[in-house]
């Protein structure tokens, strides 16, 4: 700047050129400052752990949300979820009726057999038809069949998506001719993420000057997607690791022989040990708490090898809390096991989340933001 000033004094004839140069320099400086302040956040986790749902929530909270075109863009996804779900349940009931001790429980009633075959055929097509009222009615009939309900109760052995119940109960609304998905519908819609998606947002605080800029990256969680993660590991401010705690009795989408909780455990360990993350803050989201609440009273935690030393103490709400604390403690232990002593000062926080609950996500993210800001000030020596 000083040099420019002196140049301006000495060469009044080139004042316009100098002004332009000054403008460019100013812009460059602004951008470099801005770039330095962009904080990189990564959403990591195994497949189906809720990363993309959190991503959508952040979009809803801190950006202009979804416009009508975007909402309508989710209609094929929602319809696809419906067809896929009913096909999985139908095929699952057939499989279970062959292999179990009580096969009659899983035999679809005669009047619904034809509907079942038709829907299974539709579900196997490349291009799904639009969900008409007629089809919705047929799907609902099949859904109410006892065999299908029994199969659904054993959904953990098949790959039934979590949104199954929600969409099946709302079929009438989904099949309206002028249906526009609600925000909730979009949050429930399930599509495996492939590759990397990013958004940049700025949750401005009370004092506008301190507006941090965050760049959030969402990735796919399945095994083949993880080889792409390495491209994102440089210069990360914080990793938001999503772990679905309700999945302790389910197996992986990409590998029927691996328990999901064990996979999450190994993945978390691997992420913690990455050399790029020595100074990175870790926010562990223990996600899908709503499903965990319902499941833990029916299915004991010890079905998962990692939780085999769990002892239930009571029933009802107390039991749920106890189970949750047990899981949280396991993750804490894992964190300290996998962190070398010289890195223990990096930030590690655990949050209980339900990614579908907007208020809860907002509150949680606020806490995350506070933690990160505090960390920044600490690093800058102001705290």
């Amino acid at each position, binding site marked *: 700047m000083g040099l420019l000033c002196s140049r301006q004094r000495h060469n009044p004839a080139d004042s316009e050129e100098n002004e332009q140069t000054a403008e460019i320099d100013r812009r460059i400086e602004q951008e470099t400052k801005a770039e330095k302040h962009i904080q990189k956040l990564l959403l990591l986790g195994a497949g189906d752990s809720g990363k993309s749902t959190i991503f959508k929530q952040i979009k809803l909270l801190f*950006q202009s949300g979804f416009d009508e075109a975007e909402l309508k863009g989710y209609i094929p996804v929602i319809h696809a979820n419906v067809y896929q779900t009913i096909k999985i349940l139908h095929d699952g009931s057939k499989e279970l009726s062959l292999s179990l001790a009580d096969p009659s429980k899983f035999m679809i009633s005669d009047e619904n057999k034809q509907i079942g075959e038709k829907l299974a055929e539709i579900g196997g097509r*490349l291009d799904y038809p639009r969900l008409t009222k007629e089809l919705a009615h047929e799907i609902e009939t099949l859904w109410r069949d006892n065999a299908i309900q029994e199969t659904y109760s054993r959904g953990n052995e098949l790959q039934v998506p979590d949104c199954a119940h929600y969409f099946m109960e709302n079929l009438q609304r989904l099949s309206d001719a002028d249906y526009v998905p609600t925000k909730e519908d979009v949050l429930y819609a399930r599509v495996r993420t492939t*590759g990397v998606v990013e958004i940049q*947002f700025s949750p401005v605080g009370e004092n506008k000057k301190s507006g941090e800029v965050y760049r959030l990256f969402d990735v796919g969680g399945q095994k*083949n997607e993880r080889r792409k993660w390495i491209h994102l590991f440089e210069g990360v401010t914080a990793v938001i690791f999503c772990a679905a705690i309700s999945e302790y009795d389910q197996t992986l989408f990409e590998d*029927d022989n691996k328990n999901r909780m064990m996979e999450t455990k190994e993945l978390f360990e691997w992420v913690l040990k990455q050399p790029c993350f020595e100074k990175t803050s870790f926010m562990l989201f223990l996600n899908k708490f709503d499903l965990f609440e319902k499941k833990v009273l029916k299915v004991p935690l010890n079905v998962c090898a990692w939780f085999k030393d769990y002892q239930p103490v009571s029933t009802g709400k107390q039991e749920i809390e106890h189970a949750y604390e047990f899981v949280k403690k396991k993750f804490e232990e894992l964190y300290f096991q996998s962190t070398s002593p010289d890195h223990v000062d990096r930030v590690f926080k655990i949050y209980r989340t339900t990614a579908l609950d907007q208020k809860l996500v907002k509150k949680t993210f606020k806490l995350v933001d506070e933690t990160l800001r505090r960390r920044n000030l600490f690093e800058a020596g102001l705290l």
Partner: protein
Amino acid sequence: MATCAVKGGCPSDYVALSISLLSIIMLLAKATAPYLIHKIPRPKGSSFWLAAIQVFASLNLLLSIVMALGFLRFRRRYWWRSCYIWAVWIEGPLGFGLLLSSRIVQAFQLYNIFVKRRLPPIRSFVLLPLVLLPWIVCATFIHMNKPLNSRCHMGTRWIIPVICLHALYVAALVGFTGAVRHIEFRFQELKELWRGNLVSICSVGIWVVSYILNEIHEDISLVQIISRFLVLLMTSVLVVAFFSISISQPLISLKSLGKKDQQEYSMMGRALGIPDSGLLAQRELVQLVDSNEPLEKLLLNRRFRHSFMQFADSCLAGESVHFYEEVQQLDKIPVSDHVRRVYMARHIIDTYITPGATMEVNVSHRCRQEILSTLDLAHPNLFKNALNELMQLMKMLKEEARIKTVDNELEQSGWNFSHRLSSVHCADDPFHQEHSPRKSSSSSRDFELQ
């Protein structure tokens, strides 16, 4: 006084020795040339190891013949000149037996893939010791009964069953070659196979005769000299001819031999001669923003497909589109052309389906298992389910691309994507709204910058 017929060291012996040395050098040169000279990366897996085992076995065979039949004149009796080591163990299970067994295993895998059209059910590493078992049993039996005399000859009673075992394995190899003879291999493997087999059988025939003569007529020195010479000569010819038959990695031999019709084999599709492997029929570029068309139709348009592929690659999701493209190429091969279909299917499986592959795609466990355990690699609908699953993912990608074009104002020349980025400054300020009315205790904490 012992003549050279008994003790070894005749001029013909030295000639035979030098020929065998030459053949060893040629063998090693042929084995390593593609990797050292043409700098082709070493293939992983059983094909490399089977070839390495064959080289090893060939060397053993030559060495055992030299030592057992007494070509070299040694002054003292060393312990390592024991007949049992050379004539029985190294010639049998570690030489001839190993050589032929590894060939049989290779032919068996080939038979599986091209005749039965499925991925090999038994791994080579399990199969090879099994096929080698009779040799080990035989060698142990001979070792226990010790029928060899001081000149390493077995005598008529023992030589017949031993030769039978040799002949049996040769017959098995010929049998497998015969089983695949009606397949028109793409890369001229069969011609080479037959040629190699012919040479091998001739040399083995002469070898057998000479060996028997050597064993039986111990007293006639001329027979001894000539038969010894012939045995070593035929063995040398055999090992070199045998190795020249390339069965499993046609592309490597193609690259290294530098065929006259030098074609670009960078893409498997081109190598198999699928028309327009990198191009599609000329069609005008229809308005791409007309995204009401289903994705399947849009992807048939080459320019759209390449543009979409570039976009997908930029967000690290490109493998699905590449997979789609290669399956399209597979579908172009006529259903009757089994061999080409099998080659292409194997290539797709190795690149996209095998767990840990470089461009592994995101498909379910069930889908992957169905493909890997298929009974027919040339089946037209082999990859249909995988394509269905991936089409859903690609549709989502297309949605994001469409949203991006709306945000970014479509440019005339095409799409310009480097990120799926949408940076919007916050219009709605949830934190601010929460703070101002309530002035909660959390906000009165110290860390707000003044």
